[in-house]
């Protein structure tokens, strides 16, 4: 794990941020998303924590092995797709592993606002879990730790079942978030999650089909070839679809779906959102059939 503190090379101020915000660190041809932690009031610095992942894409290796103090790197953003709704009274904050970074920023903010909140944080062992001393210092009476090495397991369904928190914010590995989605399936609107891993897929034209995308607001039909993403096809006809990670985790390239059977391949939409079938991520998701309809 490394902690990176970033500053403007010319000593300028960096953008202000709110809990849940992230930046993308650009490494070669791709960008990887990291939540901001640290002090949102510090206008000169941004801070991220990066876990080394063996199976991860080059991003973490790059930050661990190539980057040193003094290196110049590029970031994109910042943006917030995991915005804290400050109007509720009570909150459940759940983190797994490095997912603690946005959660700690939220805990700080909720404490500052005087809201009711608890933090539930699981990981392999205390020694590998970031920010424990900081959490103990600032949030001790709200903190619940679940290091697996101490045989402590996060009792998800009981926790969610018993809690009367109005909002749940969670960030961590896929299985944790999947389990949470299931545990909250009765009121999915309570749950706000942030994914960190993507099963990054490169298109294999031999396995893909071509299809038509009908743009209902612009009344245009665009063909998407097997070796093309919807995003690329839309851009080719001049549509301004913003995009970012282009690997289905950031949610920037979302478009509204009017109709059609979507093959969702992103990590942004929840299971219930997929069933609703009213949006898709154009950078990776495709059509199952010959035609889909987008409300743009």
């Amino acid at each position, binding site marked *: *794990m490394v902690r990176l503190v970033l500053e403007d090379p010319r000593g300028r101020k960096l953008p202000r941020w709110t809990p849940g915000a992230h930046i993308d660190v650009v490494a070669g041809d791709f960008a990887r998303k990291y939540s901001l932690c640290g002090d949102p009031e510090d206008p000169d610095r941004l801070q991220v924590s990066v876990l080394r992942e063996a199976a991860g894409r080059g991003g973490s290796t790059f930050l661990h092995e190539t980057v040193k103090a003094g290196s110049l790197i590029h970031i994109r953003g910042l943006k917030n797709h995991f915005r804290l709704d400050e109007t509720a009274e009570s909150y459940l904050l759940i983190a797994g592993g490095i997912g603690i970074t946005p959660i700690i920023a939220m805990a700080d903010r909720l404490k500052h606002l005087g809201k009711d909140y608890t933090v539930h944080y699981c990981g392999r062992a205390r020694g590998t879990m970031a920010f424990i001393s*900081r959490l103990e210092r600032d949030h001790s009476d709200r903190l619940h730790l679940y290091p697996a090495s101490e045989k402590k397991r996060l009792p998800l369904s009981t926790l969610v079942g018993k809690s009367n928190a109005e909002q749940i914010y969670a960030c961590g590995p896929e299985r944790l978030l999947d389990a949470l989605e299931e545990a909250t399936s009765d009121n999915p609107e309570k749950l706000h999650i942030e994914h960190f891993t993507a099963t990054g897929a490169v298109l294999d034209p031999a396995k893909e089909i071509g299809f038509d995308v009908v743009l209902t*607001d612009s009344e245009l039909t665009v063909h998407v070839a097997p070796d093309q993403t919807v995003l690329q096809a839309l851009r080719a006809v001049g549509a301004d679809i913003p995009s970012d990670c282009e690997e289905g985790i950031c949610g920037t390239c979302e478009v509204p779906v009017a109709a059609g059977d979507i093959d969702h391949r992103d990590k942004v939409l929840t299971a219930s959102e997929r069933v609703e079938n009213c949006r898709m991520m154009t950078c990776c998701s495709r059509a199952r059939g010959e035609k889909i309809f987008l409300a743009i």
Partner: protein
Amino acid sequence: MADHPFSGSSHLAGHCPMSGLAVAPNGCPVSPKAADFDPFESAYQLDPPEALRWSRDQEPVFYSPKLGYWVVSRYADVKEIFRNNQIFSPAIALEKITPVSQKAQDTLKRYDYAMNRTLVNEDEPAHMERRRALMESFTLDELKHHEPMLQSLTQEYLDRIIDNGEADLVDEMLWEIPLTVALNFLGIPEEDMDTLRKYSIAHTVNTWGRPSTEEQVAVAEAVGNFWQYAGKVLEKMRQDPSGHGWMKYAIRKQKELPEVVTDSYLHSMMMAGIVAAHETTAHASANMFRLLLENREVWEDICDNPTLIPNAVEECLRYSGSVAAWRRIATTDTRIGDTEIPEGSKLLIISASANHDDRHFENPDDLDIYRDNTTDHLTFGYGAHQCMGKNLARMEMRIFLEAFTRRLPQLELVPNQTFTFVPNTSFRGPEHLWVRWDQGQNPERRDPGILERIRTFTIGAPAPHDSARPVRVAMWQSRPKVWSA
């Protein structure tokens, strides 16, 4: 209020006897702030997003008795109204916000003036049939043909002023080039350009402002002359409609789809095309130079790294676009958020305010050329009517900015100038923009090679990698023992 020019509007309700407050057409009382709102006053003229901050926070949809319009200020609402052009028809988009005097009407009649609905104010299904029939000229491949012409025009105009040390960028360049580009884009024959140029006078005050009767008549004279001359040019183009140019393309298309591309549309299209392409781009460019020169660090970043230009142009269109507001009319009883909107209500949707809505943009009042969702701005509208010329406008603005940052990086604003605006609801840009520079420092005096090192950009919206922000790693800590900071 009774003698206010707009109080004759049919939507204006009487006073509520109990509260002393005016009542909006939906029966709700008008708040004091809403009653005060006047887009012709200086607060809105100087800074539209700031003038509507209260509305974004407290009353995102309100009725303005002074205007007889509903005003909409939040991003999500403005976008939804743009999107839904069945319920919110664009039919009033070009209506004169100040009624046309009889004298001006008579003047127009003398010229057989018969401007019809074009694209921007046409309803479905006619609009979309026409838009699709005429889209070809705006595809990225077609736009490429205009690039060399724009490069050389920009070079030529810059050559004229480069050794002067001072210039009014609006009068000496930014007003002129977009008009020439518009005429070229339409495919107007070279020999007719000067005449049409003479009659292409400012439509802004006439459509969205409060022109005096004399101004209305003067505009009517020019418009009448334009109309007649445009008819002759159209006939000439019909003789040989081959080659590039939107008008020529439309003439060819008419053979295929005579009911979609009608004679009347072709005649109207020439003037509508110039209005759409000229002042919008001229103002947007002037706003851009002003904004960037007021933010010196940003200007210097761009001089150091021209790859930032596409995103910088986009951020300027967001931050200080040339179209501040647009109009729609409700075709049925409907709602916007919690507000009931009766059929026939006229809406002024303030895209400049939407572009500064912190519900959509992080730190919206910061000019951040590294912002990566800046293309979400609504300065080009949205949906079925979204500006067809957006990629041409972007190309023009990028070429201007590229040329100035390369040839005059030392450019600065003349200090203490007062910027003036033509008072109106919609088109926004300074009437003059005085800049100065030390000619002795012109980089091309040392290195004439600069003149050749023109950078070009892919046509279209900025690509994601255009907005990457450089940062230095101030601290790199592996497995930090104390995670305390």
